[in-house]
């Protein structure tokens, strides 16, 4: 069940991504509407993070392309904001909460230039939006998991983008923080921003997302929440990997080269 849209904010065309030899995403082909809160669901190893990284150009696809606002990524980078997984960075790095959120302004600031008062004000107002004002000067290693996520979201807000891609922003977050973040994301989409979130909890996904993408190494579904959320789709997504696909992956691994690379 894959719904394509006209004038998509994001168009992914026949995307194949492999790590070393093994393909992790097969022919993902989808288009997404703007101004929606969009969830990417799927089991572990389904390629959810890989999809986000491929959109951001952090991994090079074996074939296929991504277009954002009908342009290539390089042309519209400043309009896209990326929240990496919390575990992907070393939180012992000597920096304060404010230092990290200020990084969100670096894109517009450009190379060489040092952030000044304007950037600091942006960072502070973003920290206010995620309710972290009282932690401005805190060392980042002293934060809880939920607080670290909020810092990352504040950094994304500081980018003042139109499209937000968030990799597991709810991992390691307690219930009340999760609700607060979801409300914040809803407010953003109400203002016309598009937010794409990698998520793992089906229950809250059902309640909050407008549009849902289901992945299990291939695209199972992409469409409005009420049309996609069905037992059949969930079974296809979470009911184990396709037997033949796993066998082919193993076969490719044994080759000395990647035959999928164009």
């Amino acid at each position, binding site marked *: 069940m894959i719904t394509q849209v006209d004038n998509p904010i994001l168009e992914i065309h026949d995307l194949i991504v492999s790590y070393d030899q093994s393909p992790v995403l097969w022919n993902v082909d989808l288009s997404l509407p703007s101004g929606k809160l969009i969830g990417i669901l799927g089991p572990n190893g389904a390629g959810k993070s890989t999809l986000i990284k491929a959109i*951001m*150009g*952090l991994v090079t696809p074996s074939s296929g392309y991504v277009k954002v606002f009908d342009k290539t990524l390089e042309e519209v*980078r400043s309009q896209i904001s990326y929240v990496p997984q919390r575990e992907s960075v070393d939180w012992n790095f*000597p920096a304060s909460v404010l230092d990290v959120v200020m*990084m969100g302004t670096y894109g517009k600031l450009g*190379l060489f230039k040092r952030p000044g008062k304007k950037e600091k004000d942006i960072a502070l107002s973003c920290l206010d939006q995620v309710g972290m004002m009282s932690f401005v000067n805190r060392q980042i290693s002293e934060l809880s998991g939920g607080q670290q996520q909020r810092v990352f979201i504040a950094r994304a807000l500081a980018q003042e983008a139109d499209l937000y891609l968030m990799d597991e922003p709810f991992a390691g977050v307690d219930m009340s923080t999760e609700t607060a973040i979801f409300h914040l994301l809803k407010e953003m989409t109400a203002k016309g921003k598009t937010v794409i979130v990698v998520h793992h909890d089906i229950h809250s996904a059902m309640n909050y997302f407008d549009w849902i993408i289901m992945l299990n190494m291939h695209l199972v579904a992409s469409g409005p929440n009420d049309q996609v959320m069905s037992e059949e789709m969930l079974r296809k997504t979470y009911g184990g990997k396709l037997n033949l696909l796993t066998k082919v992956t193993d076969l490719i691994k044994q080759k000395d080269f990647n035959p999928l690379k164009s």
Partner: protein
Amino acid sequence: MEDFLYFFTFQDSSIVFVVIGITLLGLGSAYVGTYSFLDKKALLGDAISHAVLPGICLGFILAGEKNPIYIVSGAFASGALATFLTSWIRSNTKLSEDAIIASILSIFFGFGVVLLTVIQKSGNPEMAGLNQFIFGNAIAILEEDLIIYGGLAVLIIISLTLFQKEFSLLVFNPDFGKAIGYPMGLIRLLFNVLMILAVVIGIQAIGVVLMAALLITPGAAARFWTDRLGKLLIIAGLFSVISGIMGTYISFILPQMPTGPWVVVCLSFLALFSFLFAPKKGVLSRTISRRRYLHKTHRDHLLKAVHHGLEQGKKYLTIEEIYESFPYQKSKTRQSIDSLIKTGLITRNQNFIIPTEQGKSEAKRIVRLHRLWELYLNEYMNIAPDHVHDTAEKLEHILTPEMEALLEKRLNFPKLDPHQENIPRDYDDL
């Protein structure tokens, strides 16, 4: 003493050059090294510093004398080759990073030693002093060397200052940097170049073998003192400069003494000092705070014993009864009694220990936290009542007032704990 005055009053212009040189070198290498330490690439610095030796020898062979330009270019070229090979092997084979770095280090250094021996056998009269590149001799820095080594050090310091935010991104979150469109590959390349240059400028004063220590130790030692990048860089630079000057001074007063090892000895001393005595992160400070905590837990337990007495209707306990509650801990118990009297939580009348009003309230608070936590474990985590005591015994000392309020709310201000004992509140009269 005479030497000391002679050295530190800078009467001799050659000493001024040496001190300026070692200061710039120390700042540059500490600055680069701190980033590579934070980036967990300390070993790469070690590999590069060993790998410049063949380049130095080739530079010497080509120039036929100790020409600093040839030697610096040679050292840079072989350092760059080693760095490039390390990353090329990593992306094209399945070897692990430590194996690659160890091999590169020993292969390059071995080749360098072979070349050095060849040069020595050749009988070139200029080759005297080439040995100094292994352990360094800061006193031999001449004015013309200073222009090259010092100039490169200034270049390193300026580049790192200009690109501070870019290098922070490189270390903290390179993917994010790439996502906002920064050329992270180029920034990584620039950083590697600066790292090789930092090694190269140290070969005359410190020597190739020990240059890695000057890169990494200042940052590692400074990390004990601060959690801010700006301060970290300043402290690391300071440590490095102090050790540099000390090492140079020692090799000045004791001829035949190489500079590098003494700089490293001074640095190690500063690192050890930081490790032991830095506030908060130092061993001593951590030991003290742990001891304080243990004393506090003992005082808390003593107050609880008094509270249990009150629950059984005893208005006071005798000192012997208290000693009996803590077998084999008499002196510790005496200490706790003394400090509880000092803080006004209990009073002592001859042999009797009587809690004050404040003491009763504090004792109730500890018992309350203990029993609230037991109830929470039992109700919310399904742990049997006879299994909840041990963790409660530990957590009662650290639960904050906010946690207490949350527990009270979640459990709906309960009266009894899982063992059917009263959860004491301040308004309860005992």
